[in-house]
């Protein structure tokens, strides 16, 4: 007999959801989380689409630590000396099926873990699993410190920097082109100041993504999310591209905060935390197998993320994949077969859900981003120049736009423009 029915490694987004499902159905579950409390090691942008939470916890909104409901979607093309923003707001954003919230992981993850604990999952915090126990090719438990603990099935929910996924399913560690590094600062501001600056009411706020100057033209982008009494401001940059950048990422963040379009938004704020975390970028094609004998991967350990420029999604996938992994592991335990064949229903469940459907739909996007450097180093400037032609007057006779715009497109190259436009359409 194994020590536990299931061991779950990591309690970020995927882990507690899986633990909740298993424990609610009477399975013995041990969750091992390396943070002294859940969330202690975690950072994301972040905006959470809450529908996967609602499915399992219909009343989550009354007690989960959500920061602000997103009522403004902003996208900016940022040139070094100019910024062009689209701001979208819509009554439908308040619809429970569509709604999304800014979250802070130091708080959210503790709440998620509490739901799993209340359902009966056992937790060990402050210890990292170092390796997997394998018996005859099959994962049979984990090693943590001096201890060896066995289980019928092990669920790896250990996130983007998983040191265990390659042991479990035999894949190579992700390449620098398939991963990005995120850097973020949390900046404290009075709630009423946040509301004024973002044109929103109490409890409401904005998700704002930037492309171009934030990463000094390398692949990636800037982000800003409004929390209750703080702003989350940061960057995500593809590691392979960043390696040759003109400045380090922490200098990019400092420059971003001082950009003339952003500085007034942050003015008077106090930085209270500086964090870093990786995020997967390779999309569907970079994903490893989701299971092997005695083991399953859920969330970012399996690189389940979409970074589509206008939005970053990983938490919603991780929550939903954790739930499905927990349900499927329960069924496999009931059937007495946690081999790869016994766990096959997991992949199928994800294929049927938005998780693998969305990842598949946007599978071309990472390749498009990687091959469209103009998105980061030319188009923000092109749009700036077009706006200058439209808005900047100085008493000289205006040139008709049909004369002033074509040279701007010519600078980038008509063929490049066409190719990138078509590429973008195909990728989306």
């Amino acid at each position, binding site marked *: 007999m194994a020590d536990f029915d299931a061991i779950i490694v990591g309690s970020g987004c995927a882990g507690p959801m899986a633990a909740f499902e298993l424990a609610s159905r009477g399975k013995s579950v041990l969750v091992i989380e*390396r*943070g*002294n*409390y859940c*969330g*202690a*090691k*975690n*950072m*994301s942008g972040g905006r959470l689409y809450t529908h996967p939470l609602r499915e399992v916890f219909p009343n989550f909104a009354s007690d989960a630590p959500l920061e602000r409901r997103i009522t403004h979607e902003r996208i900016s093309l940022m040139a070094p000396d100019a910024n062009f923003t689209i701001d979208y707001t819509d009554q439908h954003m308040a619809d429970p099926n569509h709604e999304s919230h800014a979250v*802070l*992981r*130091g*708080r959210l*993850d503790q709440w998620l873990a509490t739901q799993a604990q209340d359902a009966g999952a056992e937790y060990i915090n*402050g*210890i*990292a699993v*170092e390796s997997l126990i394998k018996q005859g090719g099959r994962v049979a438990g984990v090693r943590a*410190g001096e201890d060896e603990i066995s289980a019928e099935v092990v669920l790896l929910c250990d996130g*983007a*920097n998983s*040191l265990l996924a390659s042991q479990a399913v035999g894949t190579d*560690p*992700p*390449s*620098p082109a398939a*991963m990005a*590094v*995120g*850097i973020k*600062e*949390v900046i404290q501001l009075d709630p009423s100041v946040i509301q004024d600056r973002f044109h929103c009411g109490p409890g409401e706020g904005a998700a704002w993504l930037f492309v171009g100057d934030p990463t000094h033209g390398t692949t990636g982008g800037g982000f800003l999310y409004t*929390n209750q009494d*703080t702003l*989350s401001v940061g960057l995500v940059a593809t*590691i392979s591209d*960043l*390696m*040759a*950048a*003109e*400045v*380090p*990422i*922490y*200098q990019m963040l*400092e420059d971003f905060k001082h950009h003339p379009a952003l500085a007034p938004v942050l003015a008077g704020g106090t*930085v*209270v*935390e*500086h*964090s*870093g*975390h*990786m995020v997967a970028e390779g999309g569907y094609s970079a994903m490893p197998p989701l299971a092997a004998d005695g083991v399953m991967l859920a969330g970012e350990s399996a690189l389940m993320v979409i970074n589509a420029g206008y939005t970053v999604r990983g938490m919603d996938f991780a929550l939903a994949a954790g739930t499905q992994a927990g349900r499927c592991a329960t069924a496999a335990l009931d059937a007495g077969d946690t081999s790869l064949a016994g766990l096959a229903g997991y992949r199928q469940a994800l294929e049927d859900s938005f998780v693998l459907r969305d990842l598949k739909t946007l599978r071309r996007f990472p390749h498009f981003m990687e091959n469209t450097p103009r998105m980061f180093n030319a188009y923000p400037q092109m749009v700036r120049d077009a706006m200058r032609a439209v808005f900047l007057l100085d008493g000289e006779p205006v040139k008709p736009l049909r004369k002033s715009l074509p040279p701007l497109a010519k600078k980038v190259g008509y063929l490049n423009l066409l190719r990138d436009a078509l590429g973008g359409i195909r990728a989306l």
Partner: protein
Amino acid sequence: MKPITVNVDEYLALNRYQVDEQNAHIELAADPSPTEFAKLIRVCPAGLYRLDSAGQRSFDYAGCLECGTCRVACGSTIIAKWTNPAPSMGVEYRYG
């Protein structure tokens, strides 16, 4: 590389850490290749890989954010060891 104007240490000082003085959870290879080291200078969000004005290279794991970026960037070249910090050690995000 363009000049660095920010003092990242001031930001790291705002974070909460349980620093493990006994064990380095990340170790560099002896005499690391300068080209590889230059990558780490750019990618580490804590700015722990440094080149001073005298051309001296240094690395201090104490401010590590445990993101794993250096491992992904140079795990097959000059990062000789990358493990999670010992039990209960390392960074503790209050916001995250």
